[in-house]
């Protein structure tokens, strides 16, 4: 049988719960950055400046084709060589936010392109500006078709937060690892971390489906 120790479980639980909070915070903050920055990237690629569109396109491609772990290291360890000294948290949020912004920008682009051309023409016929057209007509219609992708990446960013453990962000895996090294016992902390991830991911996926349906109805689709 396993050598599972319940009293050890209760002993380490408070630390793991704090770490859960950190994981959720990292995922939430990273996602908030990604959602906004992703939209900026998507719009920049469709904007009037060819040069900007090209630069952003290449940046997005570059970030999407290199590992997140490398980007995390890069921001944290290479930054200081250029005099940019950032805390683990700040570096982590920049790296993960930027990484997921690139994925989300592709989701938005797909959503925006799925809006029929006639919607642009009707907006022009009402003499709306480009910004008004995006804000009032195009983006509200791009949201429903973007929701699935956005939801998947929310769960994705949550599961990728352990990448930040390598630069010392005290999220779940980092904490479990620390507990394990202190007590020479890894079974309980790592198992618990797995269960915590599962306990959050599964309901979150369900909630996202519900939210999708709600937003679609709300927008009259």
């Amino acid at each position, binding site marked *: 049988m396993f050598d599972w120790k319940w009293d050890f479980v209760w002993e380490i639980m408070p630390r793991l719960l704090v770490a859960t909070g950190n994981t959720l915070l990292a995922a939430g903050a990273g996602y908030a950055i990604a959602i906004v920055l992703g939209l900026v990237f998507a719009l920049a690629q469709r904007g009037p400046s060819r040069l900007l569109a090209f630069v952003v396109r290449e940046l997005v491609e570059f970030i999407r084709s290199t590992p997140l772990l490398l980007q995390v290291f890069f921001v944290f360890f290479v930054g200081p060589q250029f005099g940019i000294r950032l805390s683990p948290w700040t570096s982590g949020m920049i790296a993960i936010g930027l990484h997921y912004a690139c994925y989300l920008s592709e989701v938005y682009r797909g959503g925006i392109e799925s809006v029929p051309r006639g919607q642009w023409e009707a907006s022009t016929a*009402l*003499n709306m500006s480009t910004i008004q057209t995006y804000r009032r007509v195009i983006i*509200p219609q791009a949201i429903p078709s973007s929701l699935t992708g956005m939801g998947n990446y929310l769960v994705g960013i949550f599961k990728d937060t352990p990448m930040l453990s390598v630069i010392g962000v005290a999220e779940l895996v980092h904490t479990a690892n620390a507990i394990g090294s202190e007590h020479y016992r890894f079974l309980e902390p790592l198992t618990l971390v797995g269960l915590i991830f599962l306990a959050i991911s599964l309901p979150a996926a369900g909630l996202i489906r519900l939210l999708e349906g709600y937003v679609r109805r709300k*927008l*009259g689709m």
Partner: protein
Amino acid sequence: MTQSFDHPLEITGTPPPMVSFRNVCKAYGSLVVLDNLNLDINAGEMVSIIGPSGSGKTTVLRMLMTLEQINGGVIYVDGKPLTHMPKHGKLVPANQRHLRQRRVDIGMCFQHFNLFPHMTALENCMEGPVQVLGMRKPEARARCEELLEMVGMIDKKDQHPSRLSGGQQQRVAIARALAMRPKVMLFDEVTSALDPEVIGEVTEVIRKLVSEHNLTMLMVTHQMGFARDISDRVCFFYGGKIEEQGPPSQIFGNPERERTQQFLSAVREAI
């Protein structure tokens, strides 16, 4: 294509034509769609455009709505250039700012309605007045409810387009365009996508506009009977040019050009 004509900075005349196409050219790559088009439309006039598919009818309206740029010539609205703006005593292609200033005079209804699906009928109508004209909401609502009443859609004002039939959607689209108080209204085959039994409810609205409002209208249509009834003038398009134009009695009763005759007899046979 890049023929240079000397176009005036303004069209004078009392009153000037409401719309004036002067030597307008449009091409997609090597495909010439509008070939040196000249067309004047007077204030309050109802002009119908008929012609075979691909003859450039929709393109005429799209250019006037400034949905795309023309490749040559100038379009004037109310005597002032629309597609161009004066600079150092010459006309240069219009920038976005000029287009937004001049486009207010024109409204358009599309074959596929193009209502905003995430807004109710009333919200669709209020969008332009509130967002673009900066009108206060109560005032915009009053104006739009009046218009929805006029097109017979007031009892469906809180429905989203997906809950409306094609004819109902098109009537909302007409109200939406009118809410901007345009001087010129463009209709691009507004009944072509409709089931036969609801075509009448849309043509009735257009009839009402003709008889009760002093709008200038340009209408592309395949309904020859309707065009004959309500138009002041009919233009027959062929290959990006006006092949023949005149009062409906002439075009439908006694067309001079062979292509017009052929087109009309082909249309009659199809019925």
